[in-house]
């Protein structure tokens, strides 16, 4: 901080600090404090706000704990998000390895551009593209029918559709951290392992993955958090049987009219996601600072 003052002087230094402070207070602290405040208060008509009934309690959170359907959807959201992270990892790892270790400069440029361009389009529109692809009378079913792989159209909307849509939506968040991590691996380590007789599987398991662990953890954390908080993909590609917890939160806010309960639900989701992330990092022995890099 003294370095900041030395470099920019008192006036500009203070301004920078004030801006950072304002950003932290306005964008991080205030919304979260408000969410917690909402979550712990009962939903009251305006006339009773500040009255004897307006007291802090855990009622809203306990409501979730006692509501079987919501609870099931909550846990399903958590493990399905983990599944999304895992599948995205399976899709991205081979590509990231190829890009980082084998591809020529030109190939890398073309592939990264091809992967990035779709992300210039809004997430809703990208998900709509999957909505069209996976439609009952859509191109995917038509294609599979024409090949004779299926005899009648498949209903893709639901768990499968949500999984596909999310995996696609979060590829880059997984790909880039892993790519960066693998790129820093000295190629001669892979060659040394091969020279010593290791199979491809063992080279990855013992040399590449341990080296890229922080990158993999970063990608998984991003993907898990984004998936758990996703709304568009489950709303468009889901079916009544594949409801996502964010949809329940949405309903409390905009259909149930109970912002307090909605805030409580959102708070629980946030806390549990954080817990899952921290536990995962602890198990993988990756520190949070490595992920932040």
């Amino acid at each position, binding site marked *: 901080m003294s370095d900041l003052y030395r470099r920019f002087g008192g006036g500009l230094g203070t301004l920078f600090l004030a801006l950072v402070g304002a950003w932290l207070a306005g964008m991080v602290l205030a919304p979260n404090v408000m969410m917690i405040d909402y979550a712990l208060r009962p939903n009251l008509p305006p006339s009773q706000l500040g009255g004897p009934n307006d007291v802090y309690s855990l009622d809203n959170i306990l409501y979730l704990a006692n509501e079987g359907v919501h609870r099931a959807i909550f846990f399903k959201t958590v493990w399905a998000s983990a599944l999304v992270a895992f599948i995205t990892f399976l899709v991205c790892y081979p590509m990231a390895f190829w890009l980082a270790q084998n591809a020529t400069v030109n190939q890398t440029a073309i592939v990264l551009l091809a992967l990035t361009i779709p992300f210039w389009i809004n997430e809703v529109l990208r998900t709509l593209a999957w909505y069209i692809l996976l439609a009952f009378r859509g191109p995917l079913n038509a294609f599979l029918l024409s090949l004779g792989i299926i005899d009648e159209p498949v209903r893709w909307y639901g768990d499968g559709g949500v999984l596909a849509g999310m995996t696609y939506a979060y590829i880059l968040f997984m790909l880039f951290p892993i790519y960066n991590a693998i790129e820093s691996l000295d190629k001669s380590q892979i060659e040394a392992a091969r020279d*010593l007789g290791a199979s491809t599987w063992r080279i990855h398991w013992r040399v590449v993955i341990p080296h890229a662990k922080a990158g993999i953890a970063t990608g998984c954390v991003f993907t898990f958090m984004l998936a758990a908080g996703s709304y568009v993909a489950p709303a468009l590609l889901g079916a009544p049987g594949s409801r996502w917890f964010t949809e329940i939160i949405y309903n409390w806010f905009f259909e149930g009219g109970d912002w307090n309960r909605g805030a409580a639900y959102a708070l629980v989701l946030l806390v549990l996601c954080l817990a899952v992330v921290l536990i995962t990092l602890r198990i993988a022995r990756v520190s949070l600072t490595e992920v932040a890099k």
Partner: protein
Amino acid sequence: MSHSVELDHVGVTFGATRAVDDVSFTVEGGEFFSILGPSGCGKTTLLRVIAGFLKPTEGRVLIGDRDMTPLGPNQRPTAMIFQSLALFPLMPVWENIAFGLEARGIAKAERRKKADELLKLIALEGYGDRMPGELSGGQRQRVAIARALAVEPQVLLLDEPLSALDLKLRQHMRAELRALQKRTGVTFIYITHDQSEALAMSDRVAVMSAGVVQQVGAPRELYDNPATPFVATFVGETNALPCTVKGIENGIATVESAHGTLSGRAGDGLSAGATAKLYVRPEALKPNGGTNRLAATIERIDFEGAFALAHGMAGDGMPLVASIASTELAAAPAIGEKSGFGFESANAVVLPDV
């Protein structure tokens, strides 16, 4: 006896670049063989061809008299020590050493036992549970060697493994490598750009330049009888005196140079009337004596410890270097003095210009 390695007309082309051009030589089993050349001469490419990382564009690689050209590095009885050593930084030392055994499906207890034996061999007993990052450069070097030896290779390939070490350690490791090679009997193929390293350690050396093998021979042979101008100038210090060949008799060429008529042993392909150079080592130039006389003005004397190099300028503006033993420095000519040097014809070689 360990396997021999035979290169049979090996060539490697990368796009428009000819990295290795028609290389053929045989490394005998149990030999310490060096490939010496400046950076970019294709020596590392050649080593990668022998290891199996690179398929030659043409030619064959035979290891132990078996054609191994189509086989990958994991199917060859070779082990490589990389320039960067390529130790696995996230595995403890013993797992590094036993990695090749792990790949062969050997049980953990036995791997640990073998690793401990090898740690003893490289005088690092008790270091098994350290991480490679906790070791010094020389220790890491030895771990890399143990890791390669653990798979009991027939041929050990070393890609300038000492280049990152400081001089004292490098000299120590040279002796250690040499002793290890004698003890294990494994065929060593050693890549280096450091000619003193190659001369000191090897049974035989192949000198490479621009993808071509210039000469293969014992260190003394390369030094005393260079086959090409490149070998003459790259291996050791030398004076190259431009000259024209007047005649050749009994293997001794008489030449005409700026220093008058001189003579030296005639190299291959030398004929009367050819433009050539007479190569004479600094240590062959003596202030007194010698049948061939040169004159030069002493410009500076660089003291190197065991000897000093006297740099002179001949009348025609050509530099001349003579080596003077430190014990004889007192009698050396002074700087600025015009001094005469002489050499015996047997200590000079005349090679045609290419």
